């Protein structure tokens, strides 16, 4: 997997451009469209003088370009602004809610791809059987599912009607206090293992099951469908037919050769589905009261807390960019024709 310096430079420059571009677009949207941000900042009881002071604080008295440059300047020094809603630094807010989302997304993605890819493979090699037909129907339904609705239904069934799984929050406060659980990494499952805290581990596992499954539904169906479709395409390609003709064992053909060919587009789709999944996470977090970035962003949006909104958009965009880079690197590792 040769990665050239040029590629690294290119990616870094690209990341920089994306960050500035995203900042620029979001900044423009959020500064131009709401008529008077200083009113929001100064709060409902502000006097005229306070509003004027707010204008100065927010640099609103300066030309828009200067405002943007000042913002950029602060941004690269780690000053992402102060949330108008919580009055705490956006960077801290964003990072603290990010771990909750990551825990959810990582679990969802793991479920999705660990089950999804083999499921797709199975459907592909069982082409022309009921397994394939069922897989086709199940995955098309899953990929068309409005995730927020699924969340509601699942919550209703398992949380309210059956009452077997908790349907909100990350962990029971009571357990946290009783066991003296401390956050270290912010990932409850990891933290509880690190502390040998059996109760918190099980409790947070119980809490994460429903949201993670709901969130996993889309990437799962996507990866299964993608795998199935690509696998079928690959299996008709001459380089696979030739291996069959040369009498290699089917196991080798399937799991060594075809699978690697299949993984190239499948992994690319993982990167892209990340984008959809994070938006899915917005809704799932909203329904399951999961204190993640999606929840934070939704709340910030609804109360026009623009520094927070820009922060959220940015962190998500950076993540998206990083994931895409990762996909490129994995791609180049799999495919020797791709030189980075």
């Amino acid at each position, binding site marked *: 997997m040769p990665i050239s310096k040029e590629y690294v430079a290119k990616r870094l420059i690209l990341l920089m451009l994306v960050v500035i571009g995203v900042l620029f*677009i979001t900044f423009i949207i959020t500064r131009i469209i709401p008529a008077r941000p200083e009113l929001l900042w100064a709060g409902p009881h502000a006097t005229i003088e306070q509003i004027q002071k707010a204008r100065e604080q927010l640099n609103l008295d300066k030309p828009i370009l200067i405002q943007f440059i000042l913002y950029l300047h602060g941004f690269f020094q780690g000053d992402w602004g102060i949330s108008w809603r919580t009055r705490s630094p956006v960077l801290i807010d964003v990072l603290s809610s990010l771990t909750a989302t990551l825990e959810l997304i990582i679990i969802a993605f793991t479920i999705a791809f660990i089950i999804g890819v083999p499921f797709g493979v199975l459907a592909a090699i069982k082409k*022309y*059987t009921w397994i394939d037909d069922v897989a086709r129907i199940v995955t098309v339904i899953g990929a*068309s599912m409005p995730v927020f609705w699924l969340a509601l239904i699942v919550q209703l069934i398992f949380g309210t009607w059956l009452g077997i799984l908790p349907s909100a929050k990350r962990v029971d406060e009571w357990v946290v206090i009783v066991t003296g659980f401390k956050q270290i990494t912010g990932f409850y499952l990891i933290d509880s293992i690190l502390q040998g805290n059996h109760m918190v581990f099980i409790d947070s596992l119980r809490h994460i099951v429903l949201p993670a499954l709901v969130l996993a539904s889309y990437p799962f169906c996507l990866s299964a469908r993608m795998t199935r479709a690509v696998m079928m395409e690959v299996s008709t390609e001459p380089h696979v037919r030739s291996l069959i003709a040369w009498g290699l064992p089917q196991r080798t053909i399937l799991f060594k050769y075809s699978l690697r060919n299949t993984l190239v587009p499948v992994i*690319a*789709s993982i990167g892209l589905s990340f984008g*959809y999944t994070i938006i899915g996470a917005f809704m799932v977090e909203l329904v399951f009261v999961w204190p993640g970035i999606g929840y934070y962003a939704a709340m910030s949006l609804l109360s026009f807390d623009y520094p927070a909104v820009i922060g959220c958009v940015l962190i998500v965009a950076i993540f998206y960019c990083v994931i895409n880079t990762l996909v490129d690197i994995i791609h180049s590792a799999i495919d020797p024709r791709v030189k980075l």
Partner: protein
Amino acid sequence: MIRFKEQRIILSLIVKKRLSLISLLIVLSFIVFGVSGPFIVPYPEDAWGLTYNVEKRFQPPSVEHPFGTDALGRDVFSRVLLGSSFSLIIAIGVIGLALAIGIPVGVVAGYYGGRIGTILMRITDMFLAFPPLLLAIVLAATLGRGLLNLIVALAISWWPWYSRLVYVQTNTVKNMPYIDSAKIAGLPSYKIMTKHVIPNALTPTLVQAALDMGSAILEAAGLSFIGVGVKPPTPEWGLLVSEGWQSINYAWWIAFFPGLAILITVVGFNLLADALRESADPRIRRTVLMRLGIKQ
């Protein structure tokens, strides 16, 4: 053994055909309901949210109200039915607007290339760097709630996909021998562009766009659910689910049926896409192909 295998293959082909038929049926009925919705709703006042009925609140599904009634005593069935009209408007609006921006950008960048093309595509890439929908959410929230704002917000986050697709297609078509043969016939550039490049480059995009209507409905519903979409009492499906959420423990049907309507409609579009081309999520697939430099 042989006979069995043959029958399995034939059966599978039939299932495939059946599914395409079903999908066609779903999509057609969605369009029919969407167009005729306002004229055939059993309780038009309920559907438009112009009335309420205190006595009829939270009635479970019955013959009179097949989907039950909501918190204001309105017929959920009527609202879901009329919702198909709004979903249709949103889908057509979003896709249409996105195409209206995306096609010129893609065609110009693809056909003329050069510096203008590069600049246009870099701008497109910048928009594509946003995770899908995030931009739409921010825009929709900033513009304020409303049908038109929702459509604009979604279209703005959507057009770069089309412009990229059209760009790739235009580039492919531009290098096809039949374009050479048109050049050799001496046709002027504008004629080649209008008669050969655009029709050939756009057909796949337009088919794709038609199939994307399912996704547009899904994403619009998501935005409405978050609370940045249409405003009440518009019977948009996402908003209906969101309203039903308030009383889901008490009256599950209010949120259930509109969600089911979304699901069925989107399944219809996706199955149709499957039937037209063996595909995963069309949105994902086309970008994967673009990334990998494979032409469709």
